[in-house]
């Protein structure tokens, strides 16, 4: 097993190749571009295909086509480009096709800027496309996780026949870190006995998303609802960091979760029982992490947006403890001391900064 110094975006590309991704369709957009560049250089050598689509809409629909054949396929983009993929994402969810989609979140709304942001949380977790579907969203917080989660995303996509989103940001995607190029144990995955590829020797197969009869439409929707419920029950993941005996919890994912770890250590040094819940699956949101709030006096959610995940935290907490919110916007990151100061303010703690 080798360790390499890689940009976060490159780690995603390398993980995809090693996970058996055979096709990548993309359209360059900062700060995700190194993914299409890395794969353009390395995927063909590994026997795969990279095609730069005429736009993001084409790219996601090329993924849709390739996925219908049962091949492992991926695309990557950043916020405005990810928006253009939403139509396709809805169709992927409805046709139950496994595709990995990376969103290296930039700032917004609109064209925004290139810095780190978490403003696409709603879009990724609540369904950016039409029709009310759910998709798995994984939130890495460092290079190693960008690699590991990307690999795992292909297995999850195949297992549940669903699009899986890796939600990164411009900070994680552009930073260089050592990444251990781990091999994943081979997961037991269902056979792709639904894939098209020519009906020689078997009955004709169809992969599509529409039903023009309401009765069939309801049957389909109930099927999806059951599937989303199963994913919600079995997939919730998070990291607890000094959360077991915590009186005050910070909740942050990705880049914010990473910064908050240092805040927890600084607060603990001063004798304050602060812990961190870092959601890893943003959908399903790890509600189970908040099942036991005995002894928790309050929660501070830290995000790089106007307040999006905080709504899921409040739902999970169900008013059992007060929830406060801190943010930075437009590509700015909160410093450790800034979060520490905010903790002191909202919980009336005499923290030293």
């Amino acid at each position: 097993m080798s360790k390499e110094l890689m940009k976060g975006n490159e780690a995603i590309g390398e993980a995809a190749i090693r996970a058996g991704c055979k096709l990548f369709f993309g359209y360059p957009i900062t700060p995700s571009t190194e993914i299409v560049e890395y794969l353009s250089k390395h995927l063909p050598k590994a026997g795969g295909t990279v095609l730069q689509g005429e736009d993001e809409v084409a790219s996601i629909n090329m993924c849709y086509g390739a996925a219908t054949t049962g091949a492992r396929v991926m695309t990557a983009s950043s916020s405005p480009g990810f928006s253009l993929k939403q139509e396709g994402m809805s169709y992927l969810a409805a046709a139950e096709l496994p595709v990995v989609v990376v969103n290296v979140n930039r700032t917004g709304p609109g064209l925004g800027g290139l810095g780190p942001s978490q403003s696409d949380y709603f879009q990724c977790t609540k369904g950016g496309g039409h029709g009310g579907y759910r998709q798995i969203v994984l939130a890495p917080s460092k290079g190693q996780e960008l690699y590991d989660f990307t690999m795992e995303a292909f297995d999850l996509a195949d297992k549940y026949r669903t699009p899986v989103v890796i939600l990164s940001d411009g900070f994680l995607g552009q930073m260089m870190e050592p990444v251990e190029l781990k091999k994943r144990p081979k997961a037991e995955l269902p056979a792709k006995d639904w894939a098209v590829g020519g009906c020689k020797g078997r009955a004709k197969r169809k992969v599509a998303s529409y039903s023009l009869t309401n009765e069939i439409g309801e049957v389909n929707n109930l099927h999806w609802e059951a599937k989303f419920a199963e994913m919600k029950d079995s997939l919730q993941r998070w990291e607890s960091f000094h959360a077991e005996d915590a009186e005050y919890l910070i909740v942050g994912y990705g880049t914010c979760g990473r910064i908050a770890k240092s805040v927890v250590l600084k607060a603990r040094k001063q004798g304050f029982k602060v812990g961190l819940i870092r959601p890893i699956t943003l959908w399903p949101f790890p509600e189970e992490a908040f099942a036991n709030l005995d002894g928790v006096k309050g929660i501070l959610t830290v995000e790089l947006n106007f307040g999006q995940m905080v709504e899921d935290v409040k739902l999970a907490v169900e008013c059992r403890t007060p929830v406060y919110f801190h943010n930075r916007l437009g590509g700015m990151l909160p410093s450790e001391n800034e979060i520490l100061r905010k903790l002191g303010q909202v919980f009336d703690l005499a923290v030293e900064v």
Partner: protein
Amino acid sequence: MQRVFGRPKGLTELPFHYCPGCTHGVIHRLIGEVLEELDIIGDTIGVAPVGCAGFSLDFFACDFVGAAHGRAQAVATGIKRALPDKVVFTYQGDGDIAAIGTAHAIHVAARGEKITSIMVNNAVFGMTGGQMAPTTIGGQITTTSPYGRDCALVGTPIDMPKTVATLNGAVYVAACSVDTPKNIIQTKKCLKKAFQVQQAGLGYALVSILSTCPTNWGLSPADSLKWLQENMLPVYEMGELKVTEEVKAL
């Protein structure tokens, strides 16, 4: 008793439920015959779009994929890139190829994507109830051009096969019609060629076929054919618009 005529093996047993007089059924049959004659039913994957052509999903005996509006050619690209040895075709209306999916229509041709596209041009958006399409003829009344298409305001009809023929990756482009038995026979020849071009791996092939929409045109099936002949044939250039040397040598 010797069977002299029957349903081609390229079609399923399902009865067509297109409107009476609509020529989708004729075109379906021609493609079904070509799939059978070339013996490619088991190796073919079709892509259906949105609109009336979207029903084709159930009517062909080969594997089929349903795409979003306008996206059939991008979806077909993904399928073909994943399975280069299979035969991949799209079956789309004029709204699909010449309006919402124009970008894909241009770029599959530019890339020389080794797929076959069939465009059925009835000069309206059919399934949504007869609205103006980019292919609507000047003066033609539709629900969104109730006073007749005013070309000075909304532009002139797009002759999509002629446009696509200018792109280097398109090696075979034909513009056909199914208004007469003679033209039906000619259309079948072009369809067959378009699939053979793909089998030979030569590049992108497009067959555009003028079709009728009696329901939305508000005409009888017979009058619809007459309307097509009098109004569409003078506007759209017919024939094999592009046949490269490699295709000629097939």
